[in-house]
Every structure is written in C-alpha cells, then in structure tokens.
C-alpha cells in the first residue's frame, strides 16, 4: 500500500510567521451525548485524554480530544492508530447510541508558528485572539471556509477540510507575508 499523502504534501511558507502543513494525523469524529456511560472511557482509550469541557481541547503527547459541540468530539491521534482507536471506542460504548468515524483523510492540518502567529489568524478569523485561552478549541472560519484552531506550543494548530487545503494555505501565506504585521 502507498504511504498516505496529505493534501499539500507538507507545503510551507515563511513570512513574519511560519506556516506549514502537517500530517497526516489520525482523526475521529465521535458523536455521543456527554452523559452517555462509557464516554470518558472511550475518549481515554482512544487518546489517553480526559473528556474535554465545553469549547476545550485536552492534549497529551501527540494526542488530543476536543469538544466540538454538545454531542460531538474530535479525537486526534497518530494516523496509523485510527482503526485501533475506533475499535476501542466501539468496545467502550458498546450498546450505547454513538457514532465514531475516521475523518483523518477529510482534513488538512496546519501549524502557524512564531511570536506573531496570532496576527496571521487575526486577519482571517473573527476571533478575539488576545482572549483565546490556553486549551481553548475555537471553531470558526478563516475567510470563507470553516476552520478550527487552538494554541499549542509556539503557535497554533489549525484544522480545515481537505478539499480547501490549497485555499487555506493561500490565505495563511497571504496573511503571513513579511511587512504586513499588525503590530
């Protein structure tokens, strides 16, 4: 079998912040009500993370669990571990109404890094970047497409749909051009 290819093959752009496509990452959409028995165990089994609170993302050693809506979670893990994680979720939630599907290939993931990385996002997303808290998962839009991002290390991790990866890379590169710093 071929190696999985990301949408942009790891494209990168260096401006006043560094933008690069990362991945492939394993991702699972898990839909279940927050009070379903076994949910926390399922999330733990898949990612090693605790169940995230509203609008939060819990990260731990390359894995993460994010709150997407009152009955939806985004689980992030190494690409190759997706099937095993799905099986673990299925076991933990056996008999409970839920939906868990792999969406690893439906997404593109970017890192925006540098001391002024927040300014790149401030040009594209109607988000109060100064008030974005550590561990906050922000579902929003970048210009004309849906996106979600959170602060992580020296920058931000941004997730969008795979088909618009080129558009989002274009947005991020345009916004990160040297000389266009907001301050």
């Amino acid at each position, binding site marked *: *079998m*071929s190696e*999985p*290819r*990301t*949408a942009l093959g790891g494209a990168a752009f260096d401006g006043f912040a560094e933008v690069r496509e990362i991945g*492939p990452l394993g991702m699972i*959409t898990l*839909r*279940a009500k927050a009070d379903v028995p076994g949910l926390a165990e399922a999330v733990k089994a898949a990612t090693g993370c605790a169940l995230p609170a509203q609008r939060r993302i819990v990260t731990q050693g390359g894995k993460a669990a994010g709150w997407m809506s009152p*009955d939806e979670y985004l689980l992030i893990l190494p*690409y190759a571990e997706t099937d095993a994680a799905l099986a673990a979720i299925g076991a933990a939630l056996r008999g409970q*109404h*839920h*939906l868990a*599907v*792999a*969406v*690893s*290939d*439906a*997404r593109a993931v970017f890192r925006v890094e540098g001391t002024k990385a927040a*300014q790149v996002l*401030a*040009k*594209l*997303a*109607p*988000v*109060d970047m*100064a*008030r974005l808290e550590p561990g906050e998962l922000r579902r929003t839009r970048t*210009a*004309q*497409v849906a996106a979600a991002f959170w602060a992580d290390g020296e920058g931000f991790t941004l997730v969008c*749909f*795979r*088909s*618009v*990866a*080129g*558009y989002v890379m*274009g*947005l991020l590169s*345009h*916004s990160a*051009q*040297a*000389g*266009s710093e*907001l*301050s």
Partner: protein
Amino acid sequence: MSTRLSRGGRLIDRSATCRFTFNGRSMTGHPGDTLASALLANDQLLVGRSFKYHRARGLVASGAEEPNGLVNMGSGGRFEPNQRVTTTELFEGLEAASQNHWPSLEFDVGVVNNAVARFLPAGFYYKTFMFPRPFWKHVFEPVIRQSAGLGKAPKDRDADRYEHAYAFCDLLVAGGGVAGLQAALIAGRAGARVILLEQAAHWGGRAPVDGDVIDGKPAGQWVDEALQALAKMENVTTRARCMVAGVYDHGYVLAEEKIADHTPGDGRPKKRLWRIRAGRILAATGALERPLSFAGNDVPGVMLAGAMRDYVVNHAISPGDRTVVVTNNDDAYRTAIALKEAGLEIACVIDARAIVSGALPAKARAMGIRVEAGRAVVKVKGGKRVTGVAMGLQAGEGAVLEEIACDAVAMSGGWSPVVHLWSHCGGKLIWDEAQAHFRPDATRPPTNQDGAPMVHAAGAANGALRGDAALADGARVGLEAAQALGLTPTAASPTAEVPEEAAMEAVWIMPQGAGPQLRMKMWLDFQNDVKVSDVQLAAREGYESVEHTKRYTTLGMATDQGKLSNINGLAVLAKSLNAGIPQVGTTTFRPPYTPVTFGALAGESRGEIFQPLRRTPMHGWHEAQGAYMEPVGLWRRPYCYPRGNESHEAAVRREVLNTRNGVGLLDASTLGKIIVKGPDAGRFLDMLYTNVMSSLPVGKCRYGLMCNEQGFLSDDGVVARIDEDTWLCHTTSGGADRIHAWMEDWLQCEWWDWQVYTANVTEQYAQVAVVGPKARLVLEKLGGMDVSKETLPFMQWADGTLGGFPVRIYRISFSGELSYEIAVPASHGAAFWEACVAAGAEFGAMPYGTEALHVLRAEKGFIMIGDETDGTVIPQDLNLGWAISKKKADYLGKRGQERTYLASPDRWKLAGFETLDGSVIPDGAYILAPGFNANAQRNTQGRVTSTYFSPTLGRGICMGLIRGGLDRIGEEVEFNTTSGGTVKARVVDPVFYDKDGEKQNV
C-alpha cells in the same frame, strides 16, 4: 500666488525633497506635505473643474471635506481615480493628474455649460427625463455623458494587495485630537481595552495648529506626551492613518487603514480593512468648518479659514500675499493672526457681525489688522483666481461700498460637528442655536442590543468647539464611557488655555438681502455645482423634504457627501420654506465617512484565493493531464481530457465511446457521502427518502429520492446499508453540505428525541468509478478481491483490499455499464487513481470527465438533479413513481405532492425526444403549442431539460418535460431554436440505450 514660506511648517521636513508631477509638470515638495500643500507650494491653486459647469476649482479645505481637489493618481496597476489631494501624503515619484477637464485644465470647453447655466437648473435631470422625451436620448444624454464624470476607471489589474483584520475592544475611540487622546488616557488607565484610531498621519487635531496651551505646555508637546503614555499601556492600541468608516449594530465598526498609500511598492499591503467589535464607541471626530455663501465663493483662492491656517502653520504655505478674511465668528481671526505672524498681509477682516468684541479680534486689531464689522463680501472678483473682493453691508442687498484687492480669501461660516459616527446607527441630533449647528443629543444616543448607548460623542464632535471645552469634554465623556463599561476610572482635568471667544452669528446668505444675480453665484456644493438659487428653486417647486431636495438638486451627493454643503443648504431651504432649521432637519448620514477603496473591501479575496476552490485528491493529476476543468459548486472537476489538439467535443465523444466499448475512469470523489447511524436511523431515512430505506439489507444498495416539504425533488443518490444501524447516503456533488444540514435541521429541531447521528464524510474518501464492459478486468488486474457477478452483484457493496489499497467497492452505475465505484481513504486517492490508470492501460482505460458522464447518463434516461429538476419538479413528473413508497404513512414531501396542482394530469412530465433530422435540440428550447398568450408570446407545452449529441447512437438525444409525458410517445412536436426557426422531433421513451439494463447487470 501661493508659495512656500522660508520658515515654519510644523509637519514638513525641509532637509529632504520629494519630486512629483501634476498633469505632467515636475514639482517638488517635502516629506510631511500633503499633495494639496505641495501643490500650493508650487502655486498650483487650480486643481479641477466642477461637475456640471466645469468652473475652475481650487482647494477649499485641508482635510476629508475637500470637495475640489480630486485627482487621478499613479499609472498602470497603481492608477487610482478620485484621490483627495488634502488627505494624500506626498511621496517621491507621485504622479497626479486633474480630472473632469477637456482638453486641458486651464482651458476647458465644458465651461460653456457655465454660460448656459440657466438651462441646467435644479432638477435638470428629472425635468428632461419627463419632457420632451426624445430630447433626453438624442440631445441631453450625449452632451451630459461627454462633460460629466470624475475620475477615470482603472484599466489594469491592481498591483497592490489588501487584507482584512479583526479586532476587539472595550472602547473604540475614533479621532486622535485632544478630546480623543484624553478620553483614551482615562479609559486606558482604568484598564479598558482601548483602540484609538486617527484618520490622519498626525495626531492632535486642531489644537497644535491653533496654538492651544494645555497644562502649561504647547498642545503639540501635550499630544506627544499623551501618545507616549498610551504607548506604555498594554491595553491600548493606537493607529494613525486609520479612518473609522462606519458604525453598525452591536458595536461593529469598520475602519480603513492606509498602510502603503504613501510608500507604494514597498511590499506592504496598500490598505487594510479593520473589522472591529467594540463594547462602546467614542466619537471624537472633530468638526468641519462651513463656507459662507457669497457670490463667487467658488473662485480659486477662496478657502476655508481653518484650512488656510493649517497650510500656513503645518506646511509653511503662503496662500497669497494679501488675504481678506471673511467671517461670522472669532475663530477665523486666528487665521488672520497666523498669516500676519507668518509675515503676510491681511487686507481686511470682513466680519458679518455688527459688534466685534472678542479677544481674538482685539489681538488682530492690536497687530494692525483692519477689521470691518457688519460688512459682507458682495462678490469675489476674478475668474481662475481671486483678484479682489467687493465689500458691502451684511444687512444690505449688495451695494458695493469698497473694492479690496487681494489674492486670497479666507472664509468661515462657523463649525459643524462631525456627527457621522453618532448618526450611523440612529443617534439623534439637536440644533444648537448659539453655535448654529447640529450636535449629538446625548439623551437620544444610538443604542445597543441591551438598550444602552452604543456611541458617545466627545469634544468638537459633541459641539465643544473651543480647545478648552473640547479637552474637558473628552475627559468627561471618557470617564462616562469607562464607567459605562463597568470600570472605576479616575477623573482627569487637564486645563487648556485659549482666548475667550465672543458669540458667532448665523449667516446663511451674504449679504442677507442679496438678489437673484448674486444668489446664482453663491455655491453650496462646490463639486456638484449646487447654488443657493438651486435650493431656492427646489423649494419654490414644492420640495419640502430635505431628502427630496438633496436628490432633486444633487446637493451633497458628490464624493464629499455634503460635508461642506449640507448645513448651509438646509438652512437656505428652511428659510425658503419659512421653517426652522430643526424642522427641516438633516439628510441621513450613512457609512462610509469617506470613500473606502474596493480593494480594501475585497481584502485577501482575489486571484488564487478569490474564492475557496475545492480540489479532490486527484486534482493535480487531472491538471497535469491537461484536463479542461469546470466548476461544480466550489469544486473543479474535469469536463473532459482533450488529447493534443483534440476539440472538447471530440474528446467527449471519444471518452463516451471508450467507456461504452472498453473501460473509463471517473473521479467521483466529489459525490456526497453522509453516514447516518442510530437505533432510529432507518425510521429517519424513511422520512427523508420517498421510498423505504429501513428494509434495505446489510450489504445492499438502493437508489432514493429526497424531496422538500413542498414535495419538490431536492436530491438523489444511492444509499448503502453498512450494518444493522448504519447507512451511508450518497448525495449529489453539489448537495452534500446542503443535505447534511437538512438532516441535522430535522434531527435537531423536529425529531430531537430520535436517536440518530450523522457525519459528513464526503472528503474522507476519494472515489473512483471504473466503468465499462472491461471494468471487471481492471479490478481483477489490481487484484485482491472477488469482483465477480456472483460475489459482488449489481447494487451490492463489499469491503476489501484492492491492489493493496483498503477499499469499499459499490456496484452501482450511473452509466448503464458494468460499473464499480471504489472508495479509498483520500490520502491514498491519488495513488489509487494512478494504480487504476496503470492497471487499465492494457485494457485501453481512459479517464472521462463530467460531460461524458452527463452524456452516458442521458443515453440511459437517468435524471440529473439541476437538469431535470429546478425546484418546481416533483418525482412523479419524472416518471419516478416507482421510487415513491405507497405503503409509508409519511415522508417529507408526501403531503405536498398530494396538493391538487401537483397531482394534476396536466403537468409537464418527462419524455425523450429525437429530432427527425438527427440534430441536437438547443439547450433551453421550448416545445411550441398552437396560438399565442395574452402577452403575444407563443404558447408552449414543454421544454428541454437535457440535450446532447449521443456518440453511441450517432444522433441528438433530448430529455424534456411535455404536457402528457409518456402518453405522447410517437407524436411529432416542434422545438424552437436559437436561430429563430423550429426543429421537429418525435416523442420517445427517455431511455435511449439498453432499455432492459442488461449491460450494467453482468
């Protein structure tokens, strides 16, 4: 003549020189100049021609209110029309050209309009629209088109880039004068998140120009210290060259920042549009001086007194050797004093007030300046330039007492607060009798969603005109705004020392008894050529509303949007109507405050990122093959893959025939894929689809239709049962997001207690259709799964590994051929496609595009959402009754379809058509019926929905809707054609090829 003084100029840097051109003439200025001040330094007083009469126009103002100084700037990709010289910073290499003149600025043929001004009165356009009608088309319009128009439209692609940025704050302060600075200091110290924006490149507003002293320091020094203090506050952001354009509901503010306007080509964005969400907005936007209405007030050399002071103090410009100041207030004396102190002569201060007693007039008199009280300018002498004024009594009718030679006139009719930001969201104004202006009524502010005031006005914008009052008002309102934000600010009380000023006196016409001859030369709107006489005529003709008068006369409709003319115009209107000014009121203030360039509004969305472009994992391969791409929603899909010089038409024929006779490959990744899972999923799908999906066995596929509540066909696709409580619904390529949202809408809002989850996994999979009699050979070549008819029959699916790829194969067909649609994780999509191409090579496999897809499905009579449907078609119209369950109690659309109109046997229904001559019926053609309707249009009985040349059959084939549908089979009908004729066709079965479906079931 105007020239540069040998000393002074607080904003210019004399150590450096900027070269620029105006109408091709080389000129020089200094950094810190505006284009306006640089033009004046080069004695270029004449900057344009007026819109209607093409009268010579000089600079009147020094800021955003300037009506005349509009130029074409730059060239090629940096050409921009209608650039205001007073707000354009000078830079090395600037190119400017005046507008609206022909053949030259100095000699303009349009000026003959001036001589025939009586033929172009107020309401000229409306009058000629009405009568005589032919005159408009043949006489007036050609002439107006020749002479009207301001800047030229740019021809080249914009060389610059633009962007947006979002910002959030507790308090947005608009205006960096002393009031705005003071308010920002108070709110900033109280801990509020403050954004302070100033439209100009320099801070401080009028105070430094007017020589105010604040806390014992020159105003300029106080401004610098305030800025330093603000810079130290992490919660405060200041931004110059950033104009607040508009205030919108919920504290939303748009502002335009000029970044590289004055440094073109330095690689930075030219402009940035700020989209700001503010808790409160503080409008400290200052005030604008009003002209006085005297005859000849538009002659070049007549300038606002405050503007003339700006040019002298800021840029060391002498507007002329000998200046007459005409005023109704004390402030204009500052100009006389400033000019005198700069070594220039003041011929006279003509003051309309009978008694002149303030401190500033006293100082002027002490300096030896002649002051004439109770006097008026009867008219200005000169054509392209002021040569003198005729003075008379303000109380009189225009008898000339004395002619005074001069080469410049400074006028001041008082100051009007800039109430735009207060007014954009509905803040109300009150008429201030003492200062003769409208100012914000603090008791009726624009309110927020919680009913609290959204905008606070401060300083001159609030009617606190004098320096000390403006500063104190800034402090007061800053405190008030910070408290409104729930903070506990500390009051500040800086003191400004400014001279006492005596009361101004409202003067709307000068002299007050001026007759018609003089009134015809009193300009209100300098750019649109609206005069006192025009507004009076409008009043006589019955225009009572200020909004109607504005549109009838075009007063305030030029690019300056009436910043100078509004109050004077409505005062004249009020007098003509014998009404009070507050009763007449103002026209509506709408955003933007000054024009915002389209580039800034577009922001980043141009070129490659104009619009999101969705790409499948195989997109790059298609492009590398030279595929001709077409938009499908936001996707780009290959329309066909031309080889060499092959035409698109030939490519489509080749692709169709190769698929029918051999094997074709289609990138079907865009197909919508939605997982529906849960104990109630079957029940849910039975409501969504017109047929039964709950009974579908695991491992099988079924075609289904979805309708909206009205019963109209909305989407279609194949549903696969994955396991006991999981289904996968394929939707159309364009319908995936819409149908997913539709599902969630029903689940969240109506059937919230049903246990169903959905997930849109469209992009998780790349999907490849391997289609044609040799399709199975290709899959067998790839190897790894049994794809025989016995193991994987038609309308079943199977998971497995094909050529080493993890796949799910659906045996479904949209072509009527043996067909496998193979889903593979998108990250392997490109590799899998390449593997299919390689495996198919020996079988002659070729990729085919969307047009071949359409032809193949039309040959089989398969409907296409968007072709056979248009939102007014129900499944029954398309003979799809077989896909509608008769057993189900309900499904979305069922009741809609039972309405009499939709159940009528007279509806147009689907049939096939074959022309008698084998030709292709044009797209969009109608089937003619005898006779004509009430509008003398030909009656119709049907229309084309899909029409193609069928390479398989070698003739045109057509699907369409016709009254009676399949009952009409065998009849001959006539379609209209694009050339105006008709074409005869026979009604046939819409399944043109392989009616029994044997080819797909092998």
